[in-house]
């Protein structure tokens, strides 16, 4: 079983990146600001249709010259640096949101599974709280539970630790390492420590920041 195989070409942003991620492993995508790390994640998530390229996940095509699978049908989970929890829903309801896709049927089953996930990420006691009542670390833990509870075949992490207070970073990093076990994952990060702790391999986007000619 193969994992992710992709090439993303976006000439407007001078991006041409290709890599593979073996099934169940994590690849850290490194590179300078503006090198196109987020562009690649957007294309894999389904928010950006690259001019050319392809992405296959196992045997299924996410996109290529002729095919474009919309984001909601990809089963690709996306975690940004801010948690982006739904502000009007409790932590539990946030986690339950993606359980439909994971095949969890019925209200009580969804509640039970959501609780279990919240406990697993260490915020089980906060299930009834709204996002504005959570600290940054608690919110990100909830967001991690939400992404993984939806049972994605590919997980995309865009700087998942960089908006957290320094003292909670090691714990959330350890949590990610645990829950990502066996998940095919692409991690975008600036921090060597993240790549070291979470990734099996790294891919550095070669292109440096474009050198701007001096103005005037």
């Amino acid at each position: 079983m193969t994992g992710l195989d992709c090439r993303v070409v976006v000439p407007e942003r001078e991006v041409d990146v290709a890599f593979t991620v073996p099934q169940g492993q994590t690849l850290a995508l490194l590179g300078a600001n503006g090198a196109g790390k987020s562009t690649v994640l957007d294309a894999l998530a389904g928010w950006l249709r690259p001019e050319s390229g392809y992405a296959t996940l196992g045997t299924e095509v996410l996109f290529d010259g002729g095919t474009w699978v919309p984001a909601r049908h990809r089963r690709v989970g996306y975690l940004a640096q801010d948690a982006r929890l739904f502000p009007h829903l409790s932590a539990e309801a946030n986690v339950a949101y993606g359980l439909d896709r994971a095949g969890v049927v019925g209200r009580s089953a969804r509640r039970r599974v959501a609780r279990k996930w919240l406990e697993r990420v260490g915020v089980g006691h906060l299930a009834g709280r709204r996002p504005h009542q959570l600290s940054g670390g608690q919110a990100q833990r909830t967001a991690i539970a939400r992404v993984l509870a939806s049972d994605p075949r590919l997980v995309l992490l865009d700087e998942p630790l960089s908006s957290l207070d320094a003292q909670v970073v090691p714990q959330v990093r350890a949590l990610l390492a645990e829950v990502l076990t066996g998940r095919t994952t692409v991690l975008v990060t600036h921090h060597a420590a993240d790549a070291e702790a979470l990734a099996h391999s790294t891919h550095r986007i070669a292109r440096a920041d474009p050198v701007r000619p001096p103005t005037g």
Partner: protein
Amino acid sequence: MPASATRDVPVRPPRALTVVGVLGGAAILLPFVALVAGVDLTRLPRLLTSPAALDALGLSLRTSLAATAVCLVLGIPLALTLTRLEFPGRSVARSLVLLPLVVPPVVGGIALTEAFGRRGLVGEHLHVLGIDIAFTTAAVVMAQVFVSLPFLVVALEGSLQTRGDAHERTALSLGASPARTFRTVTLPLMAPGLLAGTVLTFARALGEFGATITFAGSMQGTTRTLPLQVYLERETDPEAAVALSLLLVVVALAVITLAYGRKRVTIS
């Protein structure tokens, strides 16, 4: 607070600006003060409970509520289309939606007559089917929808644009259908803009005069809303006009308090 208590030091505007600012406030408030002062309290109950006044008030409330409901049904999809769908001519469309805000309402009434009057573009076909809109209560509601829909759309567009679509993307990437995303994410997150917009829409519909009298006429119980009644009384019984005006002001104040008086719900 005792004089020794700790206080923040605010940045004050220049004194001269404050003076002019107070004048600006007076320009808005003085007429209302005069209106209240001009009311004969002993006659007020009788003036407000005359059959004509009660008819007008009832009609105004019914039509304004109906118009607000129609605006919600049409305005939410319109605002979403204008902010979330890319199509050629979108910026032109967004400007055109504002047209009823800037044309005189009487011009709106003429335009509605040209469209839905008995000999109008659409109206003549409806007439063949036995449907006549002009000079009915339905025409009152249509005139109110015409002038107040932009208020709702502008309020919703503003809140949709500042919020962006990150939460919708999250919902879709969790596997939600577009319909579920709208119902469970977009609509609830619209709530603050929706509340403010709905209140403004209702207030504008309640005050509508020019388009109504032009397109719907002024028939007691059918199309003569409170503003039309005020205008009519002004000729025959100025005191009644003042009393009814006060009633409209009180209703408007209540509406504004409802929308802006409560603490704003902030959604990050």
